[in-house]
């Protein structure tokens, strides 16, 4: 409460002066009002940069093995230490961000698109609604990680298949969210008005209902992204995810499992990056939820 009053006061001089705010001032004001969003965004930008521009951050080749330098603690040559094959953990951790970011973004985007399309249709046509929602209840009763594990058991380990295995458990959850909103929006006067003007159902779904869903879906997408990144690490850690030759955070930690006592840094650093990434995305999600005023 106190902070919101302070925020109000801070706004006053700018409003009375009526001078155009510089970009810097505007950003500072935005950051003051949305601290979680800005903090999460900043951490996320850093991690994305470290992954995408990994070669520019003084990394070596993440795959080169130097048996002489195996299991070395963090030092000036190996900032995060080296693993049992003498590979540089710093390089591997930075490159590992790539897999996580690709998986997180693809799963969020794909499950959102598929789930929204299905949710719109299911929510609007009463006849299929009851049956489909029973099916969705059943699918959601299967814990996501177990479903993804079972799917991976039947597919070859590849980044693409990990993405598929993580999309499938998310779809029913998106459908449920979209459907609930469609059900309430369907009775809205704007939809009634559009119908009276002779608009067809597809037009109503796309032009009237979908725009109203944008905010909750964006927030949902960030949470899906965060959990997909976690789940990719879980799958890889359990040996049913990204193939072992690709340095992903889960894989690095899976290999470090046997060396917890000898070389804890193999697990410590990739896990720290993983935790920070997921935290940053969750903060962005919370920030967006407050900013876009979703429930």
């Amino acid at each position, binding site marked *: *409460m*106190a*902070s919101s009053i302070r925020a109000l006061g801070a706004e006053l001089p700018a409003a009375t002066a009526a001078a155009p705010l510089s970009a810097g001032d505007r950003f500072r004001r935005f950051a003051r009002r949305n601290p979680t969003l800005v903090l999460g965004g900043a951490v996320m930008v850093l991690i994305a940069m470290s992954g995408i521009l990994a070669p520019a951050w003084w990394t070596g080749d993440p795959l080169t093995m130097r048996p002489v330098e195996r299991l070395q603690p963090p030092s000036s040559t190996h900032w995060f230490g080296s693993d049992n094959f003498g590979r540089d953990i710093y390089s591997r951790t930075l490159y590992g961000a790539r897999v996580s970011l690709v998986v997180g973004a693809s799963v969020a985007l794909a499950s959102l698109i598929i789930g929204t399309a299905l949710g719109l249709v299911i929510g609007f046509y009463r006849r299929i609604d009851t049956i489909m929602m*029973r*099916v969705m*209840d*059943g*699918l959601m*009763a*299967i*814990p*996501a*990680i*177990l*479903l993804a*594990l*079972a*799917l*991976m*058991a*039947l*597919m070859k380990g590849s980044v693409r298949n990990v993405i598929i295995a993580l999309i499938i458990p998310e779809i029913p959850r998106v459908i449920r969210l979209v459907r609930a909103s469609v059900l309430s929006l369907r009775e809205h006067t704007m939809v009634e008005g559009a119908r009276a003007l002779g608009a067809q159902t597809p037009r109503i779904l796309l032009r009237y209902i979908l725009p109203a869903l944008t905010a909750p879906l964006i927030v949902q997408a960030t949470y899906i992204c*965060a959990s997909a990144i*976690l789940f990719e*690490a*879980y799958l890889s*850690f*359990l*040996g*049913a995810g990204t193939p072992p030759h690709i340095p992903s955070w889960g894989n690095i*930690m899976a290999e470090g*499992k046997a060396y*917890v*006592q000898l070389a*804890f840094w193999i*697990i*410590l650093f990739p*896990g*720290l990056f*993983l*935790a920070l990434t*997921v*935290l940053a*995305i*969750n*903060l962005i999600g*919370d920030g967006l939820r407050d900013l876009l005023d979703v429930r």
Partner: protein
Amino acid sequence: MMREIVRRLLATVPVMGVVAIAVFALLHVTPGDPAVIIAGDYATADDIARVRTRLGLDKPFTTQVGIWLGGIARGDLGASIYSGLPVTTLIKQRAEATISLTLLAMLISILVGVPVGVLAAWRRGSWLDRGVMVLAVSGFSMPTFWLGFVLVYVFAISAHWLPVQGFQPIERGLWPFLRHLILPAITLSVVYMALIARMTRASMLGVLGEDYVRTAFAKGLAPRRVLLRHALKNASLPVVTIIGIGFALLIGGAVVTESVFALPGLGRLTVDAIVRRDYPVIQGVILIVSGVYVGINLVVDVLYVVLDPRIKY
């Protein structure tokens, strides 16, 4: 009330039906011949044929579904391809570790999460509240297995206070049992605890603004009494719901936690089965775990009626 409970119970039947069929259909939704995949990379044509007849994959799809559902009705989930033992036997052998782990984790999460959420809501906007919220979002983002390794490193490897890994059945005494279980349970509880604390706080905030809470404070009741008897009781519905729904998180976390601490539970059984492509075991575990999840949410629904007599279905 009894009629309500029976109706809720019946409503779980179609859900479990969908689960049973979905778990079975899994084998067939992925591209490729399941017999070839299960037989493995070095299988001969003979091996593949054996797997195919063994799993009944040579029969028409509807017949296969019928056999699977009929088996479930008789309590028969088939046999492991690897060991030949009935899946139900394997699950029974491994159930103790998983049940102990999840129950202890659930207990810790509720005992910590609920009071912390209540305090945060009561002192809204204070440093205590902010600290709790920061911890909650961090806890929620924590990779379970990584946290497990960090705790092992600190409390077992560096400090030698607790065993690194392993499991002791409760028959060998309560203390060895708890000593082996405490780190895994704390590891597993963090995500769930964060979820419960957040939900408790949000729900309490809604209730603390109510007139009857103000009245209770105004007539001089002790804060603890108002918070627990007046506010928490009315704020408990969403909390109980999240305890039920969040159970899925607990199960997912148990799979990786068991792997970190080498606990002989259902998670390890699943992971081993996946490496060996032992599909009947995978299907059996998923079916049982989903059944437990549905059951817990049924209990939650029934608790609703007990906690809030206003609710009529």
